Each structure stands twice: as structure tokens, then as C-alpha cells.
């Protein structure tokens, strides 16, 4: 049965799993930053353990989580 699995899986193998980004909005200065999604992130969660890269404030809020559109498919 498992004669040619490589052939069947084909080109889709490239994108194994889509990787979402988490967008955090700093409560102090309002800057929005993104980073790769971490487990237990959810939209509208308040995060107080991550420093804002601009003002150094530790309070921020997750405002969005999505998979960014690829600029150009190769």
C-alpha cells in the first residue's frame, strides 16, 4: 500500500501548518506589536508579562490573532 507516499503528498508539504501572529497593543502608549502565537493567547487577553519595545510598559492587550497573507507565493 505505501508504495509512493512522497508522490501523493505532493507540493502541499511545504505549508505544514499555518502560523498565526499575535498582535499586542500596549496599554500605556498604544503601540501595536506582533509576535508569533503562543499557547494560551486569545483575543482580548490582558498580558502583563511582556515589555513594550517602545516605552517599556508591561501592560498590554491582545487585539488580534491571525495568519498574515503571504506576500508572494513561491
Amino acid at each position, binding site marked *: *500500500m*505505501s*508504495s*509512493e*507516499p512522497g*508522490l*501523493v*503528498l505532493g507540493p*502541499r508539504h511545504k505549508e505544514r*501548518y*499555518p*502560523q*498565526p501572529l499575535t498582535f499586542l497593543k500596549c496599554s500605556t502608549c498604544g503601540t501595536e506589536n506582533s509576535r508569533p*502565537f503562543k*499557547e*494560551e*493567547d*486569545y*483575543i*482580548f*487577553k490582558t498580558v502583563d508579562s511582556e515589555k513594550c519595545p517602545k516605552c517599556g510598559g508591561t501592560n498590554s492587550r491582545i487585539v*488580534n*490573532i*491571525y*495568519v*498574515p*497573507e503571504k506576500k508572494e507565493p513561491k
Partner: protein
Amino acid sequence: MAEYLEAMLNPATGGDNLLSFLLSLIWIGFLMIFFLYPSLGQRMQLSYMLRDLERKLQKLRMIKDEIGNVAVDTVKRVGRPESDPSKELERLSEFFMIQPESMDPYGLVYKLEHILETGETTYEKEVAAIAPHATETQLKTLTNLVEILRGINTLYRVVRHYYLLGKKTSNIYMVLQIQMILPQLLEIAESYRQAAVAFSKGQPIGDGVGVLVAAKLADGAEKTRYEIAKDTIVQELELENRKVYVVRAAGPGGTVGRPGEAVKLLVEKLPQNPKLIITIDAALKLEGEESGKIAEGVGVAIGGPGVDKYKIEELARTRNIPLYAFVVFESITEAITPMRESIAKAADQVLSRVKKLILDKVEGGEVAVVAGIGNTVGVGG
């Protein structure tokens, strides 16, 4: 001797042409075979199709095993069970619900609702039993993951059934049926594979766009909130002097809640009839359409088995409440895999259109109900 042979093979010499004679013989042989065995061509085609099917079945099995592994790993990691959950998960992946008898359609929706609710509760309890350390949020998402496992298991069993049946009976039409729809089934299987990972990590999915709009509408403006039906909350807010009741599934655990029952209970206890009920949901796009396209119309935008849709329609008819709907188009894959940028961006546009609709159609002091439909995995607030 060589000259003689050469002459025989050369049609220009007028001699008997041995080669062309042999060729004719072979052709006649072929013709006789196809004449005496007319099904030979079909048999060749059948064996080719069966081989193709076998390869795809193999791929389905690999996807099924992968989802099974994701489920086992997640249950172990999140639920920390004392024993290996593989056996229990396999048992749950065979769990079924029997559709109610429709010969007598009276009360069919409520029978269906009863069966679905029993199934849902039982499933959640079973999952809770194999994942004793999971939080309530994790448990809901885990239940979704086990449901995906059940989905892929059913898909695999059905395809295998047709493959084996076709092989056993050498019935090309049996094989043809499954081969025709197999590309779509494989696409669904591939979506399941990605969905399993999304649920194992609690990432928001495309189907959650309706809930996301509702959550964004209430965000920052919410006055009070309460649970009105299982896993479903109402958030009250005021929008330029209009009273807005937002109904949605409570996140961030993966659940769709019971929007139908929730809207019904809410409207029944409101002091005045709402001026309109707006439902927001993801809808299946047609091939070639762009994802994240927004459309609006009238009616109740709720997919699934129809119980929730029926309840809101019935309520709206008896009380004469206009029904408005917004949908965001996406593919079946996008609906159950992590939310794409285009869909997340569409949520903001729907939000402003919902606000505009409320301001246009509802006067100050009047009431509107907004129901965000979809799976709320990864959407809190």
C-alpha cells in the same frame, strides 16, 4: 539467404511482406481479444482507478493517524491523565448520533435539538474523564479536537468501504462514485489536519469571525454581562442612546454555544420588542471568490443543523421582528483553520457596517439584538 529475407521485408520488390503480415496478425489478435472480452478495457480502467484510490486512501490514513497523534499528545499534555488515553480516544472517535425519525415531522427540530444536546453533554463529560487536569476552557477546545478526530475517522471509514467494496465486486461504478468526490474529501481531510493543530493550541479559526465581530462590538462599551444559555453570554451596551444586546458564545474555549436558545430567552424577557435582530456568521464562498468578502441580507445567518436558525426565525415571525444578516465569505478550509488576515480584517469592516445599520434602523431608546455566530476558540473578552 540474407538477400531473400531482405526481399521479403521490402514491399518494393513485390515479395510477400513478412513484417506487415506479422503486424496484421498482431492487430487481428488484439481485435479478437477486445471482441471476445468486451469488458477488458473496463477492467484495465478499474484496476487503474483502484490503484489511484488505494494511494489516496493511504494518504487519508496518514492524515487520520496524524490527527490521532495530535489528539493523544494534547490530551496527555493538557489533561495529564494517569493512563494512556489512546484507547479511550479511539472509542470516542467511533461515537455516533442517530438522526431523529422524520417520517412524522411534528416537533422534529426539538427532537434533533435534544439528541444534539445529549450528544454534546455526553461528549464533554467523556473528554473530561480522560483529561482530568484540563481547565474548563481547555476542555471545550479539547472536545472540538476529539470531534475532528471523529470526523476524519468517519471520512476514512467511508472511503475505505467504497474502495474495498469496489475491489471485491469489481464494480467500476462503485469505485467511480467515490473517485469523483475524492478530491473534495481529501481537501476536507487536509483542512481537518490543520484544524486539529489549531484546536490543540487554541488558535482562533475562520469560523469565529462572527463571534469576533460581536466581541469587538461589546469591547470597551459593555455595561453588564451574564450567561443566558449553555456557553452563551449576553453583553449589554449602549450605542448612541440605543440599547444593544450582544449574544455570543463565551470564549476563549472552543464552543459555538446555543445562540438560538439564547436569543429566544433574551427577547422573551426584554421589556420591549427589539427593533431588529442581526446575525453575523461566516459563509461558504464559491470557488473563485475572494476570502473575506462581506455580504449583507435578510434572514438568519446560522449554519449547522438548523436548530438555532429555526428558533430565531420562529421567534421573529411571531413577534414580527425584522431579521438582518451579515456574512463573511471563506472556504471550508479557511473556516476551520487559523484565521487568515483577510478574514480578520473583514471583521473590522463588518463591525462598522453593523454599527451603521443599528444607527440607521433603530431610533434612540429602542433595542437591537446582535448575535455573533461561530466557534469562539481563541476569542475571549
